[in-house]
């Protein structure tokens, strides 16, 4: 019973704030709702027993990416933006795309409706560490290359003499 209550309340929190991200007119508010939605996803990880993922989600997404987005929103925002329409005129077509994707997704999801979790969830941090520094060492080291490339890219693009 507790599992269900936790799951449904986290679901409502995540989806409602995700809708606010997409539909809110004020970009500052929608970036704040982005942080709330990502925190809700972190709660869903916790309800799945993924302890390390929960911590990483809080550290990377909620306190990293969401804060970065808020900074950029405040850097680029203008007061006149609040009076402009934030949704383009092709939202009907987008709704149609979503509807078609929804039919497919829920057909797939319904096939899994008899799979329940077996056993208790156990902490996975130790196993993740073993996996990353054992079997998956090469992909794990390659991600550091991706991060380095992203870092250099960010510095390169934001330098003023490259802007012209």
């Amino acid at each position, binding site marked *: 019973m507790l599992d269900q209550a936790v799951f449904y309340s986290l679901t409502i929190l995540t989806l409602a704030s*995700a809708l606010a991200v997409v539909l809110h007119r004020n970009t500052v508010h929608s970036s704040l709702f982005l942080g709330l939605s990502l925190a809700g996803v972190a709660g869903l990880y916790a309800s799945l027993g993924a302890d390390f993922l929960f911590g990483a989600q809080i550290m990377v997404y909620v306190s990293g990416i969401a804060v970065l987005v808020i900074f950029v929103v405040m850097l680029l925002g203008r007061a006149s933006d609040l009076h402009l329409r934030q949704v383009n005129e092709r939202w009907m077509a987008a709704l149609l*795309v979503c509807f078609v994707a929804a039919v497919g997704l829920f057909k797939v999801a319904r096939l899994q409706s008899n799979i329940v979790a077996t056993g208790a969830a156990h902490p996975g941090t130790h196993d993740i560490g073993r996996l990353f520094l054992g079997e998956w060492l090469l992909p794990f080291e390659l991600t550091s290359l991706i991060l380095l490339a992203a870092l250099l890219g960010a510095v390169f693009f934001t330098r003023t003499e490259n802007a012209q």
Partner: protein
Amino acid sequence: MNAPLTLAHYMTVAGLLFLIGIFGALTRRNIIGILMSIELMFNAANINLAAFDRFLHPDGVTGQALALFVMTVAAAEIVVGLALLLAIYRGTDTVYAEDFNLLKG
């Protein structure tokens, strides 16, 4: 409400989050809004990975490890995306996607 939680529950939540993300990415005019919607889509994929790990492979952590990779790539993507946005904003003085037509012939 009292039915036991199944994989379908988590897949439905992830599906809805992904659909909200698609809708935002297709309809937001503000390019920061598009980037935020893409983050929501990444998170939907991650929920699915963690749920598969818990329900189908409870003794392993492969799904969680894959989700961590997705998280890394998402962080790199948002950093480069925001840096590009800052560079474009300096040139065009706008954040609206339909005004980014520098390459239009």
